[in-house]
């Protein structure tokens, strides 16, 4: 990384900590979160058609509370038949 283009390290530290604290607090590893995501998508797909690439499932922190946020765009039913 060049001297002039160097990204200052504080934001790096904060971003890394945000991720690691979510996993520490929920006792959920990144791998477990991934498989939770897959299971969730599989279940939803049984009922409605979704676009797997547009799905966003993340754990977010607010203060000391964590929540699982899922944004799952649905495909229009008219297109499938």
């Amino acid at each position, binding site marked *: 990384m060049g001297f002039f283009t160097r990204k*200052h390290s504080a934001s790096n530290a904060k971003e890394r*900590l945000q991720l690691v604290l979510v996993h*520490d607090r929920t006792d959920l590893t990144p791998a477990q979160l991934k498989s939770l995501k897959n299971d969730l998508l599989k279940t939803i797909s049984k009922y409605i058609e979704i676009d797997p690439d547009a799905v966003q499932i993340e754990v977010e922190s607010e203060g000391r509370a964590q929540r699982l946020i899922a944004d799952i765009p649905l495909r229009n039913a008219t297109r499938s038949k």
Partner: protein
Amino acid sequence: MTAQVITITSGKGGVGKTTAVANLANALAMDGKKVVCIDGDIGLRNLDVVMGLENRIVYDIVDVIEGRCKLKQAMIRDKHYPDMYLIPAAQTRDKTAVSPADMIRICKELRAGADFIIIDSPAGIERGFRNAIAPADRVLVVTNPEVSAVRDADRVVGILEAEEKENTALILNRLNPALVKNNDMLSADDVLDLLGIPLIGVVPEDESVIIGSNRGAPVVTDAKSRAGQAFRNIAKRIQGEEAPFMDLDQQTGLWGALQKLTGRK
């Protein structure tokens, strides 16, 4: 009189717990309060040297628990403040010599004769830490603006939540304002954002802290020290008084004075 029990803890070692205990105890004693410090780090006794009392130890906390002396006999009176005492840790024993119930009993006995009881917790989240937080009315978590210290502080805050210790606040120690300004150190806001607990004070990095420990005379007694000022402010907040947060951006020394003179910052 019924004392408030304050435990200073951190998770990670080396972030400044013992320094914080010695400084806050001295600052409270300077304000005329009666203070008893307890070194909770059995086997790794340190508070005695930081407070400059290592030559006066006869009995320690394990002697009290095992009945070899009265509680009063293990209380070492400070050299400068006759209303400040230290109960030292045992050096040749381990943490299993003390239980959470022992700590609660000792604090109960001390409460009537003091304004504040300050417990220096060992690093880690095991028995020694459990002992230290058991009698606490208030817990101050010390951390540094650094990834490993913040992560460990978060673990400790999580455990305190689970233990229903509700009166918890953060001391952010060893903040380097120049590095923060350059975006190369987590700021106080960043750390508060991450940890989500109230802040009771920010202590700037200051070489006079080391000089103070060398001499066994904590920096709060040095009127010119910035870290000393920060600890005096925290002591005021502990007593329920308002104390302004310092402007850490302020330059000190000759260079700072010159910059001020020329109107540059």
